[in-house]
C-alpha cells in the first residue's frame, strides 16, 4: 500500500514538474518568437531610415536658386524634391509617396508601401519599400520652426526643416496576450511587433 502511495505521489509530483517545464518551455519559445520579430522590425526600420536620411540630407544639393525649385511638392505623405544625390554634377528628382501596391497579400492589414522614385540622367530608380511600414508622415516647418499646417504646402520655399515619422510592424502577426507597452507597439495591437521612429531633418542645402 505504501509503495502504491509512493508511486501515485511521485507520478503526481513528476507530472506537475513536467507540466511546469512544458509551460515554461512554451513561454520561452513564445518570447524567442517575439524577439525574432522585434529584431526583424528593428532591422527593417534602420534600413528604411538610412535610405530616407541619406536622401533628405542631400536635398537641394547643387540645385540652382531660387529654392522653390528644390522642393517641388510637399504633402503629408508625399514629397518631391531635387538634389544631386550621387554627386555627379547632375540634379536628380526624388519622389517619396505611399501606396498599397505589393502589400495587399500580407496578413497585416495596416502596412503600406513607401515608393521611392528617382528620375535623373544617371540614376533612374523606382522601388517600393514593402517592409511593414504602417505609418509614413511628413510635417514641414518654416524658418521659425513653426509647423506649416497646409497640405500641400503652397510655398515650398518656406520649408526649412522636415519631421519624418515612420512606424514599422512585422508583416506576420503572432498570438500574444500581453499588454501593448510590453511589445512597444504604438498601436497597442499586441499581435504585431513594432518600432517607431521620428526625426526632424534640416537639409543644409535648403537654406
Amino acid at each position, binding site marked *: 500500500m505504501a509503495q502504491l502511495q509512493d508511486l501515485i505521489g511521485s507520478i503526481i509530483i513528476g507530472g506537475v*514538474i513536467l507540466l511546469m*517545464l512544458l509551460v515554461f518551455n512554451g513561454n520561452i519559445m513564445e518570447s524567442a518568437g517575439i524577439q*525574432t520579430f522585434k*529584431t526583424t522590425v*528593428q532591422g527593417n526600420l534602420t534600413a528604411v531610415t538610412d535610405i530616407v536620411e541619406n536622401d533628405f540630407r542631400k536635398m537641394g*544639393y*547643387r540645385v540652382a*536658386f531660387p529654392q522653390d*525649385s528644390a522642393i517641388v511638392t510637399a504633402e503629408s505623405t508625399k514629397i518631391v524634391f531635387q538634389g544631386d544625390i550621387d554627386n555627379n554634377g547632375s540634379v536628380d528628382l526624388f519622389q517619396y509617396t505611399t501606396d498599397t501596391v505589393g502589400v495587399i497579400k500580407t496578413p497585416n492589414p495596416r502596412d503600406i508601401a513607401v515608393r521611392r522614385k528617382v528620375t535623373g540622367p544617371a540614376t533612374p530608380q523606382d522601388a517600393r519599400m514593402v517592409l511593414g511600414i504602417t505609418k509614413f508622415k511628413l510635417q514641414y516647418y518654416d524658418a521659425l520652426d513653426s509647423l506649416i499646417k497646409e497640405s500641400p504646402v503652397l510655398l515650398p520655399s518656406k520649408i526649412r526643416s522636415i519631421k519624418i515619422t515612420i512606424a514599422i510592424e512585422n508583416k506576420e502577426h503572432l498570438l500574444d496576450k500581453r499588454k501593448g507597452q510590453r511589445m512597444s507597439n504604438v498601436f497597442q495591437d499586441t499581435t504585431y511587433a513594432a518600432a517607431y521612429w521620428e526625426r526632424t531633418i534640416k537639409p*543644409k542645402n535648403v537654406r
Partner: protein
Amino acid sequence: MSGRALIIVVAGIIITTSIIFHNITISSNRIAGNFNNYLLRQSARNIAQSGVNMALRQLETDRTWRTGYTSLATMAGKVSVRLTDITFAGIPNVICVQSTGTIVDTAAVSTAYCYFPQPRVPTVSKGLLTLNGSNQINGSITIDGRDHPSFSSGISPTTGTYGVWTSGSSFSLGSSAGSVGGTVLGIDLAPGNPPPLGTVALNQVYPGGFPQTPDSALGGPTSGFPEGTLKAIAKTGLAGSQYVTDPLKLVYPLRGITYVELPAGGSWTGGSLSSSSGVAGTGILVVHNNSKDAVMKTASGSFAGIVLADDMTNFHAQFWGGIVALTPSPTGNVLGNGSAAMYFSREAISNATGFITTSADLNVIGWWE
C-alpha cells in the same frame, strides 16, 4: 513513468530551453547592436558636422587657414578636417572643407563647399549705354550719362561718362521728348535734343573686340570672371542671387546676380524690375542665352546696378547704373520708347558688384553629407 525517463525528459527540456535562451540572447544582442550602430552613425555624423563648423569658424577669422585638424578629440570621438582649394560648380577659388568624424569603429564624412568672394574690379561699360550696333529711341526717354547717386536725380560732378557708346554708326532720337546727356572731358552736359556734342560716341571700337558674353563684359578671366562665373554664382543663391530659365519664377526683390537664361530666340516680355510692392531691384541683371539672342522687352519698374542683355527693346523702366547690350543686330524698333529714364551711376555699379568684390562673409554654397 520511470524515474530515468523523467530525468531524460527534464534534461531534454533543459537543453531545449537553453538553446532557445541562447537564441533569445543572440536576438537581443542583434537589437542592441542595431541600436548601437545607429547611435554610432549619428554620433559620427554629428562629430563630422562639428568639424566642418569649427573649420568654417576658423576660416572666418583667417581666410588663408588650410591646416585643418588631425584626430582632434571631439564629443567622445575624433575628427579630422582637410581643406583644399577647388573649383566647384564652375566657381573658382572654392574651399572644400572635408571633415571625417570617427567614434569607436564608425566613421562619417561631411563636406562643405564654401566661397570667399574674390576681390574683383570689373570692367563694366564704356558709357551709360554700351551698345554693339546702331539703335534709336522714341518717346519720352532720358539718357543721362552724368554720374548720379543710386535712385537719385542729383549729380556727382565731373565723374560721369558718355550717354551712349556704340560700335554702330548711328543713334537717333525719334521724338522731341527724347534726350541724351553725359560728361565729356570732365564737363557735365545736361540731356538735350539734339544731344550735346560728345555725349553720343559712334563708330567706337571695343579693345579686343566687343564682348560676346556677360562674363566678358565684366572683364572676363583677367578681372576674375571666367566664362560661366556669373551663372554659377547666381545658382548658389549668394546674396539673394537667382538663376531661372522662366522669368515668371523670379523671386522679388531682385538682388545679387539675377541670371535669366532664355531659350534660343526667347524674350522676357513685360517683366518688372521691381517687386509688386514697388521695391526696386538691385545688383547685376543678366538676360542671355548661348545663341546670344535673348531679348529683354518692355521692362518696367526700377533697378539700380548693371544690366547685361543680349538684346533690349522698348525699355520702360527707371534705371541707375550701366547697361550693356551685346547684339550687333537689335530686334524691335527702338531700344526705348514710351517713358523711361536711364542714369549713369558709379555708386549703383559699385553696389552691384560690391557683394562679390568686398564681402568678408564666408558663403557655404554646397553641403554634402
